[in-house]
């Protein structure tokens, strides 16, 4: 009845093997929470370095300040030019990428043959891997000069140019997430609709799109997150002027562009340095909320189709 009588045969695991197992299992569990640890660390380290700016300038006066002149004698650190600039770029990016992205997703999910589907999906996957600095270069070489000539502007380095390229960057996210959402709609629903005499397109817009709508919404949100956070393209194409823009056809500065462009030149630990960390914190908070909303929506949709 005791444990001595039970493992009579050579089945007992040696103690060192048990110990090794428990170490590895613990390492696995610890890695599991790595994401939480890193997100918390990002918040803490950005916050610590932003403390001085919050104390000297004040968070509210930074967020609502309309002037960004960090290097003048009496520096002003208003985020509004960058926030509004980011919003313009994002708006242009969405106008480009949402209609095109959702339409492409519909085609890939509902109309394309299996072979086309496979090829298109790998190309989209590859598109997400094209370095943003390369897209920035393409923008400089092709887009910016054309915009300057076509729109008769003094410079092509505008929110418009940056927005188009950022839209291209957001496309893979929007296409693949929407396509996933449409693909997840049960085949029964489609066959049911087709059997009622609906055409494919009627099925798409009466059945598939409504069923996948929350997924498509999440895709757009993730696209927004991408667009707001995109750094190199806006740094290279947006022009980085210091005013609060009221049209996308002027040079604008964006939050990521400002941080990336100025971080290398500031005094470590100085006020300007700390302000840039505060700006990163604001940017982080914005994308965090956007991603959270998208993910909650996606998770709810996943739950719906599971049963």
């Amino acid at each position, binding site marked *: 009845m005791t444990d001595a009588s039970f493992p009579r045969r050579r*089945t007992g*695991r040696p103690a060192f093997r048990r110990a090794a*197992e428990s170490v590895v299992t613990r390492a*696995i*569990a610890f*890695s*599991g*929470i*790595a*994401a*939480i640890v890193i*997100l918390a660390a*990002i918040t803490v*380290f950005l916050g610590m*370095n932003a403390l001085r700016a919050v104390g000297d300038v004040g968070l509210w006066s930074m967020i609502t300040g309309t002037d960004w002149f960090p290097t003048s004698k009496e520096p002003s650190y208003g985020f509004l030019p960058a926030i509004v600039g980011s919003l313009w770029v994002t708006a242009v990016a969405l106008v480009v990428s949402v209609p*095109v*992205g959702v*339409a*492409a997703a519909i*085609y890939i999910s509902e*109309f394309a043959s299996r072979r086309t589907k496979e090829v*298109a999906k*790998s*190309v*989209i*996957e*590859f*598109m997400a891997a*094209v*370095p*943003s*600095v*390369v897209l*920035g*270069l*393409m923008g400089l070489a*092709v887009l910016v000069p054309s915009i300057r000539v076509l729109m008769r502007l003094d410079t092509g380095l505008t929110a418009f140019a940056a927005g188009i390229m950022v839209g*291209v960057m957001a496309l893979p996210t929007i296409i693949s997430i929407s396509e996933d959402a449409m693909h997840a709609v049960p085949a029964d629903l489609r066959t049911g609709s087709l059997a009622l005499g609906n*055409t*494919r*397109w*009627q099925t798409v817009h009466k059945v598939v799109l409504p069923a996948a709508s929350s997924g498509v919404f999440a895709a757009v949100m*993730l696209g927004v*997150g*991408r667009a*707001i*956070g995109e*750094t190199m393209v806006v740094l*290279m194409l947006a022009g980085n002027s210091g005013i609060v823009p009221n049209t996308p056809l002027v040079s604008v500065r964006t939050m*990521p562009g400002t*941080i*990336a462009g100025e*971080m290398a030149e500031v005094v470590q630990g100085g006020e300007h340095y700390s302000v840039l960390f505060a700006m*990163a914190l604001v940017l982080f908070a914005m*994308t*965090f909320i956007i*991603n*959270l909303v998208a*993910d*909650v929506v996606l998770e709810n949709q996943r739950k719906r189709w599971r049963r």
Partner: protein
Amino acid sequence: MNHASARVRRARTVEMLARAVTGAAAFGVLGVVAFILGYILYRGAGSIDWEFLTAPPRMFMTQGGIWPAIYGTLLLTFWTAVFAIPVGIMAGIYLAEYAPKGAFTRVIRLAIANMAGVPSIVYGLFGLALFVLTVGFGRSVIAGALTLACLTLPVIITATEEALLQVPQDLRQASLALGATRLRTVLRIVIPAAAPGIVTGSILGLSRAAGETAPILVTAVAFYSPVPRTVFDETMALPYHLYIMATQAVKPAPDVVWGTALVLVAGVSIINVVAAAWRTRQRRRIRW
């Protein structure tokens, strides 16, 4: 009768129109990708020669090669892999094989999804604050690689988890029923079966890290530096070199710019195509 056929005819027209419009969008996107690749190939092919790939820059970057940048990117990517892959794969294993269903696991998943959406420049500032300054690595390969590893982690975790979940439950049951522990089951049965997905996902994640500029901008790179001798030195890197050459070069040197772009894009493309092709082949080989 006439009425009905008119409706059917209209539906058919709309169908064709929808097919055409969505098809144009899809093929338009593919066309954009093809155009970008083609344009870079066209502009950059002329500057690629042996010297360009193997020599350091000369004459204020306007001539010579980009070897230190190529080497720097390879080095950064290698160390990124070293830091990100073990943690990423273990985290994926945790989620697929160990995590209990519940609120805590839900929070972990939210955190991972969210990490994937954190702007790359935010990772850069995080790396600057933590690895460069607090830990004290200074601007260095190791600080840059650790920063890139954070950014790559969610990709590797997600790829690993997805690949593991593809492995049929039957196999786990069979192994457990033979008296194997959960860990042995995972290591000997589940991981080998899921290896194609894990490897491809990790490689794709790393290829993206290799093309990132913003995170290394403030943690690892220098405008000009010789090939780093240790991981604690700063380094040149392809994306950063391209950025500098495209925007702030002393004298415009289009040959160097497009040549650098081509090397970067070609590297990323080759890795992607090979990884994806390998995954397709492996998937065909093992069907459940």
